[in-house]
């Protein structure tokens, strides 16, 4: 089959690789009909996630048709149309029983390495480094899905791929980011980053009853999409963000702030230079510009929700602000399986249609160009959906 393989910083290729097969009783094999490039894939593409090896198959946001099931999978049949969540979760362990699926204790074969890096290991993830299991990803014609009796959610034929594809990652991620804000009536939510997750977090914050949602970015086309999602938009190159946020909230600050940017924030001024230099010298793995701003701008007693990906260590985080102003920080890789079915119901009911973020539809063969375009936000690229050619 054809698959998108990582080959180093800024280098992906589409290669012929062996077809996947069932390796464990609870595996299934899915023929991919649509697969997306996630903003977090750019962290791999830019080389900021350790333990990637040449030849690793990328992709953790995909859907398709079940073509093979192992003997342990009784709730899926060949021919079922499914969306697959990005965390691999057993459904049996302490965390899965508590619906904390991205913390599954049994799905990361490389757990000892994750334990050395982070203290304890989270779940395995498709196509996202060997620290997270080294599983082959879904930017391919076929993909092996472990614990297929737990993750994949069947989707009805009446909905298009683009309407349901994002159930595998960014829609639940945006939803969990908004949910983590603990929104009550009249709340104002500020979102850093109008990428796919930020936009969907803004839409979900509205869905959960936020009175006002403010999205911060610098790309006009992305800010336009934020307005489409029902948010106010602020361009940080045009306005002073702390002033603007105080102005929009009567001086108090947003009730919750969402950092939907993560480890590769576009810094500015001296702190931006400081982070870039430290990251280049490998003295800091992530650049936390958005996180710092989210902390400093949220109101007293407010919540900072972090769906943006951080991998390692960050500097100059104003923790004094967290302590002295009684802030709450909530984060986590998304417990996707908790949200797929309720969000599918909302899509079916027409409450939300995440396909508004898609700007580019390309063939899987064009993946190298798609990565480059997405990275540099060329051609007003916000979200790319790839389609394998041959079926």
């Amino acid at each position, binding site marked *: 089959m054809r698959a998108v393989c990582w080959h180093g910083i800024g280098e992906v290729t589409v290669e012929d690789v062996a077809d996947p097969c069932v390796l464990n009783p609870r595996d299934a094999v899915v023929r991919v009909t649509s697969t997306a490039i996630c903003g977090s894939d750019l962290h791999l593409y830019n080389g900021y996630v350790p333990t990637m090896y040449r030849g690793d198959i990328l992709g953790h946001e995909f859907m398709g048709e079940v073509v093979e099931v192992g003997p342990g999978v009784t709730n899926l049949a060949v021919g079922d149309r499914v969306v697959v969540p990005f965390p691999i979760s057993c459904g049996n362990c302490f965390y899965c029983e508590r619906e904390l699926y991205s913390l599954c204790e049994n799905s990361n*074969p490389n757990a000892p390495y994750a334990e050395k890096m982070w203290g304890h290991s989270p779940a395995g993830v498709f196509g996202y480094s060997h620290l997270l299991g080294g599983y082959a990803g879904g930017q391919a014609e076929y993909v*092996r899905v472990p614990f297929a009796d737990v993750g994949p959610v069947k989707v009805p034929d009446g909905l298009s791929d683009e309407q349901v594809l994002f159930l595998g990652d960014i829609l639940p991620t945006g939803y969990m980011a908004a949910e983590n804000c603990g929104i009550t009536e009249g709340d104002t939510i500020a979102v850093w980053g109008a990428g796919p997750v930020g936009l969907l977090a803004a839409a979900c914050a509205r869905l959960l009853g936020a009175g006002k949602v403010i999205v911060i970015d610098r790309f006009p086309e992305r800010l336009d999409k934020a307005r489409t999602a029902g948010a106010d938009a602020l361009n940080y190159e045009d306005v002073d963000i702390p002033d603007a946020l105080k102005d929009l909230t009567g001086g108090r600050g947003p009730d919750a702030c969402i950092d939907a940017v993560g480890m590769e924030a576009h810094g500015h001024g001296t702190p931006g230079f400081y982070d870039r230099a430290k990251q280049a010298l490998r003295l800091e793995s992530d650049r936390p510009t958005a996180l710092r701003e989210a902390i400093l701008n949220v109101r007293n007693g407010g919540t900072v929700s972090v769906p943006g990906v951080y991998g390692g260590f960050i500097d100059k985080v104003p923790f004094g602000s967290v302590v002295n102003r009684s802030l709450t920080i909530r984060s986590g890789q998304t417990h996707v399986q908790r949200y797929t079915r309720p969000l599918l119901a909302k899509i079916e009911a027409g409450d939300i249609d995440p396909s508004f973020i898609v700007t580019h539809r390309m063939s899987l063969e064009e993946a190298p160009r798609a990565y480059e375009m997405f990275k540099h936000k060329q051609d007003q690229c916000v979200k790319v959906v790839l389609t394998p050619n041959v079926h």
Partner: protein
Amino acid sequence: MAAEQRSVEAVQYRESNGERSSLLERINGGIDDRQLAQAIGWFSIGLGVTEILAPRTLGRAIGVGEHPSVLRLLGVREIMSGLGLLSERKAGTWAWSRVAGDAMDLALLGAATQSEDAHPQRIAMAATALLGVAALDVYSGRKLASSPLETVPPRVHVTHSITINASPDTVYGFWRNLENLPLFMRHVESVSATNDKTSHWVVRAPGGTTVEWDAEIVEDREAEQLSWRTLPDSEVLHEGTVIFEAAPAGRGTIVRVELNYEPPGGLVGRQIAKVFGQEPEQQVKDDVRRLKQLIETGEVATTDGQSHGARSLLGRTTLGGRLS
């Protein structure tokens, strides 16, 4: 040294509570070759750093003239040998790497006499000093290579605990069926119950060989504890205890494992040492993790055999190892 004698020394070593120098003094009549190796290691690093930072000055001092890039390369070699010696892992090999380095240096000194800016008298002095160091290296290499620290396998003692999302009954039942053990203990090829209390163990060792022993259950409290140890005439002294404890509020079972292996000297001992490699604790942790996965999910998570693109040499070596 006869295998028997070595194993007596191994016991002495264990009795000395890890005080290596006292045992070494007994064996070597007061010369502590660990300290010698450390001293040579630091000397090697010092020389290496000088060669890298001040190659011209050093070149003039030993009379070989200006060959900064050669001296810098030699400096890298010195530092590697030095670090190897200080690490105390395969110290004998590192000491011999220094002997090889000395031979190389002597050859280079010889070649340097032909150089235009050579200073024959200084070269002769450097060569004399080098011969002295080489003699020390040879001595240290021979001592370390035959040191009992390398040939007597260490005793393996590991304790580890994990919480499994199943009742103590279930986890105990799985373990009590000893024939299940090879499902999660990677190095155990088979355990066959020979009667209600005794069992025969076959453990895989590197190179396609096996080590075998018979064990008996010495404590068996249903859903609480299981202890076993090898029969008195076994080649390997191995004992293990597993305690099954109900976790609070129905959160499954806390499994506490304690394993001891006391390998004898000689071939069997070396094989057992290789089975556990450098990280016996990690191996036991991995085994217990597999037990948890089997009981909770019915399978062991893996990526062995999955698809991938063309690997680099580094990827092939690393992925062929521990990372999957």
